[in-house]
């Protein structure tokens, strides 16, 4: 493929929602008018200073932003290379970066007069964030979650129910995140008139990848300002884990045109790339699913194959379309970490820094263990610590005690 480097990496998508060949609007006709409405409402909201002002208020006083940019001194000493900073998204209300996007979408839903909110969730973090904001604004909330994930993320299921949401375990297909998304789309197509679909990642039909990216870009914008304040310059590298890729896109996007900044996305390599995994870029190819064209895991006939990751939040056979484009154009370097590597990183960060990370960002930390020692001591590396590990404590405890897996 002949790839022409763009003048800016930040100008996408085009008016039809394409990032290069990726993205688009591959949805049933029933949903098409809604997606066009959403695009219109979002364009209007972006131009309305009152919308941003109201969001800013909630981001500060409800979510608890800005999240700190923390110098991980002992991890840095341990690795003996790059100076490592953690962007502390796990300190947000609800425990992950997911709330940044949900707040934006719920504010949009309110502007559009929608009273019923549906969402899909994998690890449950997006579901918890959605249930939380629906409670705050008095909206009905239905969360679709694969039955396998309901089992391995019990604590988040209980949290969502306490917040007043209805959790619908999904029994179809592989009973994980992709099936939860199928089921949410089926709900949406049925209840088009009163329902807003709050998508949790930078995927789905246009304009979702764009609006989720925009709402998450607060991560990168804050990081840029904080690093300027602490070190007086830009970071040299960024590292984030990727399932659909919203925490990564939120950190990366504001830096895409800063050519000195190296950027690394880390997919979930599960049991290894030759076995069951969830690394769409490393082990997949372009296809069409869930409203967009992007890298997907599939067989020779175009049937979607099972993903696997120790982390329910990364257990998805696709990736956001803008990531697929950034991969093909060579701006972001996509790596992958296995279940075992993530588990080791999970334990290391807990013991060295007193911070128990979620299994998702543990994948990013796992690659930092390889990247940081090879870089000089004045190299500034930022890891997006996208979620806290409380939800994973029972699962990891069982694994470490040899009870499962």
């Amino acid at each position, binding site marked *: 493929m002949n790839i022409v480097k763009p003048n800016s990496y930040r100008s996408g998508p085009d008016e039809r929602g394409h990032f290069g060949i990726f993205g688009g609007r*591959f949805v049933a*006709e029933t949903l098409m*008018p809604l997606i066009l409405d959403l695009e219109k409402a979002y364009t209007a909201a972006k131009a309305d200073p009152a919308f941003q002002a109201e969001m800013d208020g909630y981001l500060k006083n409800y979510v608890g932003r800005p999240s700190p940019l923390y110098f991980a001194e002992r991890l840095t000493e341990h690795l003996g290379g790059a100076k490592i900073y953690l962007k502390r998204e796990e300190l947000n209300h609800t425990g992950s970066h997911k709330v940044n996007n949900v707040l934006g979408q719920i504010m949009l839903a309110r502007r559009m007069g929608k009273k019923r909110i549906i969402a899909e969730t994998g690890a449950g973090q997006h579901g918890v964030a959605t249930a939380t904001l629906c409670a705050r604004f008095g909206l009905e909330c239905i969360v679709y979650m694969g039955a396998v994930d309901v089992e391995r993320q019990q604590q988040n299921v209980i949290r969502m129910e306490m917040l007043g949401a209805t959790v619908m375990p999904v029994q179809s297909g592989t009973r994980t995140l992709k099936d939860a998304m199928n089921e949410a789309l089926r709900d949406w197509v049925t209840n088009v008139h009163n329902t807003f679909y709050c998508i949790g990642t930078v995927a789905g039909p246009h304009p979702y990848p764009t609006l989720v990216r925009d709402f998450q870009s607060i991560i990168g914008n804050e990081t840029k300002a904080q690093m300027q304040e602490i070190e007086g310059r830009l970071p040299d590298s960024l590292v984030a884990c990727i399932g659909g890729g919203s925490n990564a896109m939120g950190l990366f996007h504001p830096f895409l045109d800063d050519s000195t900044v190296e950027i690394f996305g880390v997919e979930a390599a599960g049991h290894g790339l030759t076995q069951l995994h969830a690394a769409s870029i490393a082990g997949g190819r372009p296809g069409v699913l869930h409203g967009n064209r992007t890298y*997907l895991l599939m067989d020779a*006939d175009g049937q979607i194959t099972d993903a696997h990751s120790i982390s329910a939040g990364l257990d998805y056979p696709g990736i956001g379309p803008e990531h697929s484009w950034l991969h093909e154009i060579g701006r972001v370097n996509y790596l992958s970490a296995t279940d075992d590597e993530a588990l080791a990183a999970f334990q290391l960060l807990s013991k060295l820094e007193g911070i128990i990370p979620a299994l998702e960002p543990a994948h990013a930390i796992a690659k930092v263990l390889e990247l940081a020692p090879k870089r000089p001591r004045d190299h500034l590396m930022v890891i997006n610590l996208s979620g806290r590990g409380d939800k994973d404590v029972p699962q990891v405890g069982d694994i470490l005690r040899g009870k499962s897996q």
Partner: protein
Amino acid sequence: MTTRIDTRFAELAKQDRPAFVTFLMAGDPDPSTSLEIIKALPKAGADVIEIGMPFTDPMADGPSIQAAGLRALKAGMTLKKTLDLVRGFRKEDNATPIVLMGYYNPIYIYGVDKFLVDAKSAGVDGLIIVDLPPEEDEELCLPAIKAGLNFIRLATPTTDDKRLPAVLANTSGFVYYVSVTGITGAAAADSDAVSEAVARIKRHTKLPVCVGFGIRTPETARAIASHADGAVVGTALVDALKSSLDAEGRATGKTVKAVADLTAALAQGVRGAQQAAE
């Protein structure tokens, strides 16, 4: 370009009767039984045959058709074998129109140009691709028209007058009106609402309008067909097929007959619509 679909609807118009359109999943419950079922449909009264292309993630389908797709995939069905199925049917029947219905990814992976050539030569007449709205016409719709296949679009209750022209622009063969917002196998449509919607679509197009989703019985088929150029039944046929299977989901001696019998009963219902309309 005149396809078997155009010819069939012209004949039906002359006879002043609505079309009965059946849907079944290719390869359900296995490739050879599936071929026997499809061969039996015209005799039982199907005027147009829709064949589902199995896909792992059918996001507009209800549980029955999802399960049918998984049964077919488990039996080793692929897009290539779906085309073989059509080829097998065409050995005996060169008149009944065949429409392939499904999702874009398997076609995209097969290769659009190669697929269109192979589908045309196998005897396919039209395509219904659920996740390709007019906004994505360059992907498959325009190449399909060039290859001599009808691209049949779904119009829905959310397709308003402003949007209808865009939906109809590159549509040919017939228009498939989805009578309810929802997935396949959902609740039955209200025949007054359907009548109004069909009339609205007909103000924008001369194409025949067939109505589907929510039609399960000869009575509903009659009621709906009396307001349209055709009625589509899928889930009810798939359910009849499924209830004829053994405990392991394999075909039995009753499978082909179960589908053919329901097809005949539904076809009677649709034909009854002609008298009702007079």
